[in-house]
C-alpha cells in the first residue's frame, strides 16, 4: 500500500503510543473526541453506540499503533475509521429495524400512543433540519457531516474521500442550498399556522 510520509507530529504520536505513553494518548483523544463523536452520532443516532465506535477506533490505535495503515495523516485515519464503522452499524441496524418495524406495524398500536407529540419552536426546527440532513444524497451527506460535525477542512475531506476539492465544494453548496430551502419552507409553514391561529382567535 502506498504510504505518504507522515508528519513529524504524527510519527512522534505513534512512537509515544508504542511506548505506552498514556498522557500523550489522552491529549490525542481529547483533541478529536468531540468531532469524531459528533460524526458517529449523526450516523447512528445513539449516544452509546457513537461513543463505542469512537472508543473502538482508539483502542485499535492503542493496541496496534505500529501496524496501522495510515495513508495521509492520523487525523484522516481517525475520521475514515469512524465513518466506516458508523456506516457498518447503520447497515446492520437497518436490517434489525426492518424486522422491528414489521413487528410493530402488525402487532402493536400502543407504542405509537406513547410517542408524545412535543414539537415546538426551535426544537422542532432542529429536528426538521436533522431530518433534512439525513435526506441528502449519501456522498453529499458525508461531506456535510465531515465538514460541519467533524470540523474538517475542505482539503482534508477531499483526501479522506478521495475526491477533488472542487467536488467537495459542490457537495457543500448543494447541501447548504437544500438545507436553506428546507428552512425557508419551514418558516412558510409556521407563518401560515400563525395566520390561521390569528384568524381562528377572532
Amino acid at each position, binding site marked *: 500500500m502506498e504510504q505518504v510520509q507522515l508528519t513529524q507530529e504524527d510519527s512522534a504520536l505513534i512512537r509515544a503510543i508504542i511506548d505506552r505513553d*498514556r498522557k500523550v494518548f*489522552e491529549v490525542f*483523544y*481529547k483533541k478529536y*473526541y*468531540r468531532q469524531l*463523536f*459528533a460524526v458517529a*452520532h449523526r450516523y447512528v443516532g445513539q*449516544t*452509546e*453506540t457513537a*461513543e*463505542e465506535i*469512537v*472508543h*473502538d477506533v*482508539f*483502542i*485499535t490505535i*492503542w*493496541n*496496534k499503533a505500529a501496524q496501522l495503515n495510515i495513508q495521509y495523516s492520523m487525523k484522516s485515519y481517525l475520521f475514515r475509521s469512524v465513518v466506516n464503522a458508523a456506516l457498518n*452499524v447503520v447497515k*446492520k441496524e437497518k436490517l*434489525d429495524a426492518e*424486522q422491528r418495524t414489521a*413487528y410493530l406495524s402488525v*402487532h*402493536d398500536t400502543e407504542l405509537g400512543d406513547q410517542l408524545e407529540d412535543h414539537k415546538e419552536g*426551535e426544537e422542532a*426546527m*432542529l429536528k426538521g*433540519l*436533522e431530518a433534512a*440532513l439525513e435526506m441528502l444524497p449519501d456522498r453529499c451527506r458525508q461531506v456535510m457531516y465531515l*465538514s*460541519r*460535525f467533524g470540523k474538517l*477542512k*475542505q482539503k482534508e475531506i477531499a483526501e479522506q474521500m478521495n475526491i477533488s476539492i472542487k467536488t467537495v*465544494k*459542490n457537495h*457543500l*453548496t448543494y447541501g*447548504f*442550498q437544500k*438545507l*436553506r430551502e428546507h*428552512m*425557508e419552507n419551514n418558516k412558510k409553514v409556521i407563518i401560515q399556522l400563525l395566520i390561521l391561529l390569528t384568524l381562528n382567535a377572532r
Partner: protein
Amino acid sequence: MEEFETHEEMVYALIIDDLEQTISAADKKILEEWRSAAEVNEKTYQDFVEVQNSIDKIYNKNGFDTQLSWESLDAKIADTIEVPLELKSKGNYKLWYQVAAAVLVLCSAGYYFLTDRTYVTVSTAGTNSVSQLTLPDGTELSLNSGTTVRYDKENFNKERKLILEKGEVFVHVVLHNSKQFSVDLGDVQAEDIGTSFNVSKTEKHASVIVEEGKVAMKQNGSATQVLLTPGMVGRYEPQTKQLVAGSNSDLNYKAWMDKKFTFREMPLDEVALQLQKVYKTPLIIRGEALKLRKLNARLHYQTLDSVLEVISASLQCKAIKEQNTYVLSVN
C-alpha cells in the same frame, strides 16, 4: 455584478469558505461586493449563516463530556492490558461448539402476540435483540429470546402477577401501593419486595437471581420458602421438588440483557460459550492451546465485533468472520 448571477454556485462556495474562515483576501472582497450589490444577495448570505448556526446547535445539542469519555476509554484500555499466560491443553470441547452453533443457527427471528380474553401472552422467539415490555403497573421487563410470559391485562393492577412460562426475564419492579409483585414459575412463586431481579425457567429448573432489594421464593402448597438478597440465587428443580438458595457465582447472569461481561481467569472456550449465547452468533476457536488461554477483562459492547477486537488484541490472536461464524485463531 451580473456575472455573478450566472455563477451562483461560485458565490455559494465563497460564502462557505467565508463561514469556514478559509476565504482569501481577494475572494473576501469579491464576496463583500456581491453582498452589498443587492438586498437579495445579503439575504442569501444570511440564510447560509442561519443554516450554519442551526447545524452548530445540533452539534452542541448532545451532551459531550470529554473527560468522562476519556475515563471510560482509559478503563477499557486498562482492561485489555493484562495478557494471561498460556496453559497446557486438556479435553475436547469442539463437538459442543458445533452443536451450540447449529442450535443458534436454527433459531429464526420471530415475535408474536396472542390475546386470550384479557390475558396477554408475549413470546420472543429467537429474536436477535432483547425485547422490552412495560407492564400496566409500570414494571419494566427485559425479555431474553425464546421467552414466553403471560399476564392479565385488565386486572393486572389488582393481581400484579406475571406468569413466566419459559425463558428468561429481568424484572425491574416499580413501587406500587397495591399487591406485591410476583412471578409465577409453576410450582414456585417469586415475590418481590421492591427490587430488580432476574428470573429464568426451563423444563429442568427455575431460578431467581437478585440484583437489588429482596425476593421471597415460595413453594406452592407448602411452607417452604427462601428469602433472597442481592448476590444470591434461588433454584427450584421440579423433578426433585427441591428449593434451595445459595450465593450466585455467575458474574454475567444478566449479560444477555445489558451486554456487560466480567471475565476473571476464564478459559477462552468458556468465554466463547457465554458470548455466543448473548450475541446469538456462532463463535469457534481454532487451536486447543488458545481454547484454554485465560481471559481477564471487563467488556461492555453492543456488537460482537467490538468484543472480539478487544479479545484478539489482548490475547494476541486473530478474529475473522467466515460467513455467519466468527473464528478466533492463533496469529
